């Protein structure tokens, strides 16, 4: 399991307000910048950035939204693909044994993204051909979730894949629908990346594609870190890195708490 210890320069304050400020800045600054730069530099077909590059999971964390904003040189379609760090996923399938539902089959996916979301300026199938969508893993149905061929035939593998996707969608870790990329005029765009409360930690990859006439003109990759911070990170890291000591401390804390409770009881 990957764990990222975020740098202390974590952003604080309400994400909504920050995002708004970032948009305002982008809206004002980008056209000015585009006008000001010499024509040669102006040709950069795609520029994009995130409102924050670090999402900090703190005590009160209930999920957050990261804003992606950017500009293109000429009108086109923009597709954003966000992937959480890849992980090994063990899946189980239940069947009925003596009236009780029991896990009877098991399949291991060597790697699957722990988080997956897509945003697009138009429905994906209107933008590009199926083959291109598959190549860039655009859309949850195009995720490459390989199973060892010896273990599962194509049909069976597909069912396991669907199972994995459904479970992740139920947890809110794979987005069910493609969210919109909104254009403000012809050049400026923005998209929201929703991260739920149970978002896995690690290095995320945000790929922004610019497409015209069903082809990828250019693409840009931006990293996004999700890390536990403050007491959560301390407790979590400690539990995994010093398991024995964590166990002893847990007992000690319980003993003290029990004793304090006894004192409180006796007073009344």
């Amino acid at each position, binding site marked *: 399991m990957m764990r990222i210890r975020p740098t202390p320069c974590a952003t604080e304050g309400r994400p909504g307000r920050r995002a708004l400020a970032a948009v305002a800045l982008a809206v004002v600054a980008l056209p000015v910048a585009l006008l000001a730069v010499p024509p040669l530099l102006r040709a950069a077909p795609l520029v994009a950035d995130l409102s924050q590059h670090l999402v900090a*999971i*703190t*005590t*009160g*964390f*209930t*999920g957050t939204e990261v804003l992606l904003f950017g500009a293109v040189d000429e009108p086109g379609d923009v597709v954003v693909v966000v992937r959480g760090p890849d*992980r090994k*996923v*063990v*899946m*189980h*399938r*239940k*069947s*009925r044994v003596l*009236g*009780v*539902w*029991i*896990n009877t089959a*098991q399949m291991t996916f060597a790697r699957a993204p722990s988080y997956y979301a897509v945003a697009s300026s138009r429905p994906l199938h209107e933008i590009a051909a199926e083959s291109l969508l598959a190549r860039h893993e655009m859309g949850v149905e195009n995720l490459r979730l390989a199973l060892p061929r010896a273990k599962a035939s194509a049909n069976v593998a597909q*069912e*396991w894949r*669907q*199972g*994995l996707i*459904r*479970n*992740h969608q139920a947890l809110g870790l794979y987005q069910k629908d493609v969210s919109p990329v909104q254009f403000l005029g012809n050049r400026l765009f923005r998209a929201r990346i929703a991260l739920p*409360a*149970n978002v896995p930690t690690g290095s995320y990859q945000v790929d922004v594609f610019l497409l015209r006439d069903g082809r990828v003109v250019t693409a840009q990759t931006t990293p996004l870190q999700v890390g*536990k911070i403050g*007491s*959560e*990170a301390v*407790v*979590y890291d400690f*539990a*995994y890195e010093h*398991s*024995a000591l*964590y*166990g*002893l*401390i*847990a*007992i000690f*804390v*319980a*003993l003290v*708490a*029990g*004793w304090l*409770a*006894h004192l*409180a*009881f*006796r007073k*009344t």
Partner: protein
Amino acid sequence: MQIYLPIAEMSVNVLLLLAMGGAIGFLSGLFGVGGGFLMTPLLIFVGVPPAVAVGSEANQIVASSVSGVLAHWRRGNVDFKMGLVLLLGGLAGSTFGVGLFSFLREQGQIDLVIRLSYVVFLGIIGLLMLYESLRSMRRRRAGKSGRRKLHQHTWVHGLPLKMRFRRSKLYVSALLPLGIGFLVGVLAAIMGVGGGFIMVPAMIYLLGMPTSVVVGTSLFQIIFVTANVTFLQAYANQTVDVVLALLLLAGAVIGAQFGAKAGARLHGEQLRGFLALMVLLVCTKLFFDLLVRPGDLYSIGVGH
């Protein structure tokens, strides 16, 4: 008010956890039971992964048993010799239990085994208690007061390694408390319970201990067994959420005060009847969850 539980890796309402702790604490004060066997299923019902529910609940029971045993100790209601023998069995049993837990978790069967154990044990205990309380209610109404023998002699008393337990006024084979301790230790590890609800009847009916020392002695050994479970679960499976345990405890401490006061006003048989019905209710719910076709036949295992 939401709080992020670092080990369970989920965001839960603090007030919900405090209320759950309070409700179970109230019941444990009311009935004089640990409450672990109700709290763990409740945690599972609200979405805490069963493995984390079991590990954290063991941690909470350490705390609640300490506060309980101190009160009994002051009244001299702890048979330390019997407690130590039970404890030896309990330590072996809980160590074995955590090993079994890790194995079943890798096999993807731990959730099933946790639920099945609850169904079986809650079912048995609930029915026995219901039967007991109904019978004594009927007997009370009939006005008869049948005197029970101190204890009956059975095959149990033929076992070797006899030991004298002065505080309990017993002369029995050490194998018996060792065996009971072991079984309860395994259950503590797998079900996240102190095991009082099995230990106490076993001490009364199997060992024939006087009821006055039963609760104190059982609490005494539960502290060490659940401490062992806490340590091993934290060490081997990283499933102990201290934040969750402390929040539940805070609620339980307050709830238990009110529970104890309410309990003083109610009749013993009625209380036991209530508890039995509640236990059977939880048991039925868990049982039906196993029978109902799950929403998705596919599920994510460990490594998630």
